């Protein structure tokens, strides 16, 4: 009897996360859907002109911008992060891993605004001097986000690599394989789903990041055609304009959030399908 009660109570608690996600979705969609209905789905997501006070609500440049920045950031973060994780897992001496791993996890806790700020004072002037232009650009945003997600990618993929049963490694080494052969032919495939999970989490952080992006991306409303052009992402659109928005403008920002929501859901689903371990 008592056991049953405990079970029911815990079930209730466990559903709070579900309740919350539905509440969030409900609130965002309730504000956003009427506007999208008014403007038209196609005009909303496929038009390039954003001038809410003039009745134009096109967010295509921001969708493209978000995806471009995120993709680039993940490429940077994943390359560096996975290399780092592989090195720490297989080649670095144990003592150094014991020191470095907590340090890297610590770096995950640095506020994103600090990363953004360093972007403004170090990276932007560097890009401006080296490549010309304003410096605030797709490239700057991608580099900052790529660095920001590094600790997450390293920590999680390192865990995934370490979770591969030593049996597999032994089996490969006993056949006369080098450690690198073992790593890339057996350990990496076996850790595949964990590593992809690391990339997904990194991607999630990158696409959802707001403040750091506002600081370095330039937030212009053009369709980004070059890496050196300023760009506005969906998240920064919301954070930039929410403060002064009212009426349809505000609804359009909620609708932006809605689109972001849907994009993240799609990306997560794709990633989950890829990551599903082959049985």
């Amino acid at each position: 009897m008592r056991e049953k009660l405990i079970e029911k109570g815990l079930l209730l608690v466990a559903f709070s996360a579900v309740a919350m996600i539905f509440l969030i979705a409900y609130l965002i969609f309730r504000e956003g859907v009427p506007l999208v209905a008014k403007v038209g789905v196609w005009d909303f997501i496929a038009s390039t002109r954003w001038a809410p006070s003039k009745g134009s609500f096109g967010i295509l440049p921001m969708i493209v911008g978000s995806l471009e920045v995120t993709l680039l950031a993940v490429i940077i973060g994943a390359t560096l992060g996975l290399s780092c994780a592989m090195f720490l897992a297989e080649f670095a001496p144990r003592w150094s891993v014991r020191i470095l791993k907590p340090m890297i996890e610590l770096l995950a806790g640095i506020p994103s605004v600090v990363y953004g700020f360093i972007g403004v004072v170090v990276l932007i002037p560097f890009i401006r001097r080296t490549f010309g232009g304003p410096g605030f650009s797709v490239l700057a945003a991608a580099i900052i986000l790529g660095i920001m997600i590094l600790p997450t990618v390293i920590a999680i993929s390192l865990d995934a690599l370490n979770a591969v049963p030593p049996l597999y490694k032994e089996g490969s080494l006993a056949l006369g394989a080098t450690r690198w052969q073992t790593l890339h032919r057996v350990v990496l495939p076996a850790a595949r789903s964990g590593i992809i999970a690391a990339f997904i989490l990194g991607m999630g952080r990158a696409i959802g990041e707001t403040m750091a992006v506002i600081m370095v991306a330039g937030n212009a409303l053009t369709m980004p055609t070059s890496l050196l052009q300023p760009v506005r992402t969906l998240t920064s659109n919301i954070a930039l304009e929410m403060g002064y928005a009212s009426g349809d403008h505000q609804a359009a920002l909620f609708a932006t959030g809605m689109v972001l929501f849907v994009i993240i859901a799609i990306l997560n689903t794709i990633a989950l399908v890829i990551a599903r371990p082959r049985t």
Partner: protein
Amino acid sequence: MITHSSSRGLARLFVVAALLLPLGCSRASKTAITLAGSTSVEPFAERLAELYTRAHPDAEISVQGGGSSAGIRACQSRICAIGMSSRELTPEEKGLVEIPIAHDAIALIVNARNPVRVMTLEQARDVFAGRIRNWKELGGPNQRITPITREEGSGTRASFEEKVMVAGMPKDKDGKANPAAFAPDALVQDSNGSVREIVASDPAAIGYISSGLIDERVAAILLGGVAPTEATIRSGRYPVVRQFLFLTNGEATGTAKAFIEYVLSDSGQRTLTEEGLTRIK
């Protein structure tokens, strides 16, 4: 027993955490009020609140940013006693009491190293509409211009649009000119401060901010040959001027009333002037 002591330890942790929090059930003092709204007004309101509470230690005034719309919304739902707005209210938002507290000129600024110092309104319009793209065309060095504007909905941007972007534009039959659109590749920043910081660090940049926030790293452009000074602003010769508003839901009472009175008083207005605004009275 470990299982016992450690769960007790965890429990203790939470008790300590809970005790650390002041579990007040209502606001600590009846004289506390909140101001919320425009980030342009926020720094000035904070300064005023600081001085006011120094003279009235029993009063507590907290100042929030969030933007004009958030302030208006919070004021409508009585979440804050006084809203702050740097833009005019839309028809749907009317109904709140509007109290202008200061004039604010919007200055066009460039990096102090930039030799260009004078522009006509039309030139300023063309720079921000993306029709003039090189400083050479304005008598400066051969360098691409990086215009920086504010985000859609910002009061500063609205005033700038209304006064500068309409200059020389064809008028429709009501006699109203349609403002030129901002260049889509202009950088967008969401506060006066960040616009100033970018201009201060990039010789090719140009932006517009509250004239009160100009410092030595940036220079104000003489718009149509007029500098934003108190005299030109009060006389209306400087073309881009707006009002900062305090908003209340119904007549203000208590601390809110006293604070508004202080702001409109001579010493309050003097403070605003010191901080770079132009007095309303």
